[in-house]
Each structure stands twice: as C-alpha cells, then as structure tokens.
C-alpha cells in the first residue's frame, strides 16, 4: 500500500479496502488533529473530533468527487464538526482549555496568563474568522486555498483575517507590547 499514490489509495478505499484508507489517515492524522486542537485547545476534543472526521470521511468516500483535493475535503468535514461542537459548547458556556505550555525557543512572551488570555480571545472570534486565521497562520495555507475550504471569495478571507487580527490586536496590545505579562 505504501507505494500507491493518493488517488490510488482513495480508489482502493472507495472499493472498501480499509487498509488503503488507513494510509490516508496516517498521512493526514496530525494535520486534522492539529486543526481541531487549534480551534478547541483541548486534547480530548481534538481526539474525538479528529476520529469522527475520518470516520465520516470513510462513510462518505463515495461522495468525494475529486472536485477539490482530498485534504480540502477532509478539512471541510473537520471544520463542520468543530463548528457544531463549539456551538454546543458555547451554549453550555463551558470553555475547557488544556493548560499546556511549550518550551519553544521562539517564544516571545513567557506569561502563562498570556497563553490563557490568547486562547480565550481567539475563542471570542466569530467561527469564520477563527477558521480563516488558523488555516493561514498555523497551516500555512494561502487565502485562495482557505477560500476553497470556506466556500467564499479570497476577498472575504482577507477581510475575515484582517478583522480577526484587528480584534486580537485591540484586546492583546498591552501584552504584545510587553506592558503586561
């Protein structure tokens, strides 16, 4: 299975070869997990929703018509699941962020409070802005690719990211300027 191209793996998976689907999962599992973690900041959610994404993808493989790339299609499934999950969580008013601090040498601000504040502020953004910003900043996607995933124009993506950055800057400027830690 290891030597097959992505298209061949998709075809085999469509024919019911679970192991071919397994190869696709192994290729994208980290990206999908990270995408969800960056939206929820919770490992349990990232675990459950990423598994649900792949399960849903497997069941709907016959609907995948190759009009977009496989990862775009997977991202869309994941994003829809995350949005539904976050809507429920918002209603429950239950924000449950993992407390996790990285030792990255690139870290600019060491403050634990800042990490929490940043997660909270990101969570205040409208879903569409949060998704667009995440896909560009964390996944390195172009505005064009994000537009495909979000089903909108590139201009809309630009506007969403600009609004998100403006909001975060307003809320976090004192921290970013080092006035608060």
């Amino acid at each position, binding site marked *: 299975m290891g030597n097959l191209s992505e298209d061949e793996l998709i075809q085999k998976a469509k024919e019911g070869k*679970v192991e071919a*689907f*397994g190869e696709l*999962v*192994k290729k994208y*599992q*980290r990206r999908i*997990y*990270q995408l969800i*973690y*960056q939206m929820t*900041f919770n*490992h349990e959610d*990232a*675990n459950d929703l990423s*598994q649900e994404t*792949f*399960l849903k993808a*497997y*069941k709907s493989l016959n609907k995948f018509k190759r009009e977009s790339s496989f990862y775009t299609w997977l991202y869309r499934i994941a994003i829809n699941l995350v949005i539904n999950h976050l809507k429920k969580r918002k209603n429950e008013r239950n924000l449950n962020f*993992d407390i*996790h601090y*990285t030792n*990255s040498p*690139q*870290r*600019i*601000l060491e403050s634990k409070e*800042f*990490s929490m504040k*940043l*997660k909270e502020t*990101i969570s205040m953004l409208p879903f569409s802005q949060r998704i667009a*910003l*995440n896909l*560009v*900043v*964390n996944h390195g996607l*172009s*505005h*064009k690719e994000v537009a495909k995933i979000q089903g909108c124009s*590139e201009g809309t993506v*630009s506007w969403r*990211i*600009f609004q998100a*950055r*403006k909001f*975060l*800057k307003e809320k*976090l*400027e004192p921290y*970013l*300027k080092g006035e608060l830690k």
Partner: protein
Amino acid sequence: MKCEKYQKFLSDYNDGSLSRKKAEKIKKHLEQCSECREILELYRKLDKEIKIVGEFEPSSDYWETYWLKLKAKIENEEKAKERLFSWKINWKWSLAGILASLLIFVVIFTFIFKKGEINEEIYYMSSDQTLFPFINELEENNSLAKYFEELIFTEMGREIENLSHFEYSFDFNNIYNLLNEMNEEEIEIFNSEIIKELRNKGVKNEIQS
C-alpha cells in the same frame, strides 16, 4: 493613500496575498511610517503566539494506536450496518409471515363463512394466539424465517394458487376441529411443535437453540 488605508492591507501583506505591485507600494510606505511598521510587527508577534498556543503534539504512543482505534470504530460501524440490514431482512420475512397468516385466516374465515358458522373464538385463537408467537419466532430467527418464507412462497404458494373458489381442503377441517378443542396451553405446545418441525426439516445446522 492615507496611513489608515495602508493599514487595511497590512494583514494581507503579512500573508503574502497581495499582488506584487500592491506589495511594493506597502513596502515603500512601511519604510517611512513607524506607526504602520509597529502594527505589522504586532501582527507578526500575534502570529508567533498563535502558533505557540496551537502547538500540541500528543505522545508517539498516541499516534501508534490512533489508526487501530479508528479501524475498530470503522469495523463496528460496518457490523452495525450489517445488523441493520439483517434486521431489514427479518422485517421483510416477518411481514411475509403476517401476510401469509392473514391469507390463511381469510381462507379459514371464508371456509367457515361458507358453512354459515362464524366462530369468533376461532378467529381470535388463529390470528393472535396461534400465529403471533410463531411470527415473533420468525423475527428472531432469520434462518427459520427463510425456511418459512420458502415454505409459504414455494410449496404453499402453489397450493394457494389452486385455491380458486376456496375449495381447497388442506386439512382445514382438522385444524378447525383441533383449534376448537385446544386450550391456551395446548396452543402453545402446538406452536412450539410447528417450530420444532420446521427446525428439524430445513435448517437443523443453522438454528441455534
């Protein structure tokens, strides 16, 4: 262009999504505008911080078992799907059983009616007490249902086709007399005997008692 207008493009400039011409314009402006440089710097700091809070790598054990857990879920879903499909088949056979019993009832009823003797007690016994436990058994046992379905639609089907004018006897007189004389307990025994008979005849090896 005023500073405010440039600021709207700083986010796009940061992402590299502007045309070369526009990006050049912004770059030139940034060289002489400290306010815009500061905003761009804040955006870049923000991006770095967003990356840091979004970084989380579960243990290697987690990834080693990730696919196995997912595979188990896929297999469970497929089994559930198969069970649902099997339930649909059972439902089909049950419906066939109900229809067949109705047909039998119509035959018995017509036979009785022809004789001018409508016996409500027999109607009740033959439709509810005699047939329903049997149909329930069919619902629970796919192999038995399959056998019964074959029996109804092959052997009996042919006989039923011959039942023009409902003159076919098929020992209805005997069943009539038998049911008439049976109490509830005996009917239960009668049902279990039918099931036993069907088990012995057709699907000995497949039925799990």
